[in-house]
């Protein structure tokens, strides 16, 4: 391989054809409630960790649902599991369960 003094940029598009969606499917098979997210952002607004760092639960779980797992484990690891998000979720999603499940499923990433 030749070094031309620049690298090829990676594509930014979420490619649903090449992304591995099996893990995502396993996650919402276990917690179908996650599918009911209407992206209101309450979870992120109330987040204890989100007040201190850039952690965005809504965005991370949406990425995971699209098969974008890179960073998801590291991001989810910022969660303190305090449970405020679960109390404010209008859809009654078991957000803490989602955090635990995503960390468990994506531990290898």
């Amino acid at each position, binding site marked *: 391989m030749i070094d031309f003094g620049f690298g090829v940029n990676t594509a*930014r*598009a*979420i*490619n*649903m*054809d090449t992304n591995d*969606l099996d893990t995502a499917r396993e996650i*919402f098979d276990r917690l*179908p*409630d996650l*599918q*009911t*997210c*209407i*992206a209101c952002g309450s979870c992120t607004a109330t987040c204890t960790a989100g007040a201190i760092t850039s952690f965005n639960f*809504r*965005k991370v779980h*949406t*990425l995971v*649902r*699209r098969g*974008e797992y890179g960073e998801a484990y590291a991001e989810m690891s910022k969660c303190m599991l305090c449970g405020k998000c679960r109390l404010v979720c209008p*859809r009654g999603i078991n957000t803490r369960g989602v955090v635990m499940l995503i960390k468990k499923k994506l531990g290898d990433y």
Partner: protein
Amino acid sequence: MKVTVIGGGVAGIQTALALKGLGLKPVIIEKEDTLGGKLRGWHKLFPTMTPVGEVLEPLLRELREQNIPIMASTEVLGIETDGVITSHGKVESRATVVCSGFDLFDATLKEEYGYGIYDNVITSADLERMMNNGKVALVDGTQPRRIAFLHCVGSRDEKVQQRHCSKVCCVTGVKQAIEMRRWFPQSEIYNFYMDIRMFGSGYEEMYRSAQQEHGIQFIRGRISEAAPVPGGKVQIKAEDTLIGRPLKMTVDMLILLIGMTAGCSNSHWAECAGLEQSDSHFMRPLNVFEGNVRSALPNVFYAGTVTAPKTIGESLNEANAVAFRVAEYLKGL
């Protein structure tokens, strides 16, 4: 006293029945050879999944029992104060109710979605037809494994001069997604939406069950273009606006949820009777409050989707309302 009802869809039929119930003599003028309008092309109705026949059949039966005169295959050429001029001569009447309904948006106008160009790009109306025929499949007869619905095709779109929201496509998309899940339990189903407007009773619940029980995935973002890929599939591009990144995927079937556009006869009404159209080309009612079924002319009334996109229930309500207004008007003469 004689009242002309232009259009034999649900609004027209119910208007005629309600007028008859108030002791008036309605006559229905329908340009097609059968009554029922667009409803005949639908399969099941949201949000209760009621088969169309359960709504349409009793209406038609009632119409027969009431012996309401029907002029089918008749075009209306003009509306006058003392009657309506049709392709089969003049019909004398003291009042006219225009129930000429809406047109379906022509999806070929959004050429970037490839309707009429790529095989497995269909509209929501095509899907209803397929379900009525009892066979939903790809063009080659196989089962779709990945299905995408696109909301707002021909609605809220300046590019095709459709600024308005068609109101019913959101819930139709949810309804059809659930029906597709029942047809193809193993498939992946995605709905691409800009906003999900679940305004009616039971709609939100249906939306939630689509997400939770039927595993329909909702992606916020409008598909910008579709392109064919080998094997009869279609590659679509959108932005997942909740993530803020472009997204592309290949689907077996792309279903365009086409909106309601103003009926093609509306401009004719404007010309021949001096009635007013709104910016969206639907007929403009006197006002949208207590005058919502009246036109600017005292003897011309509206009911149903001639004035704006409406659900079947809303059209039926307007039909009853307009009968009351017509009776009130005739009494005052």
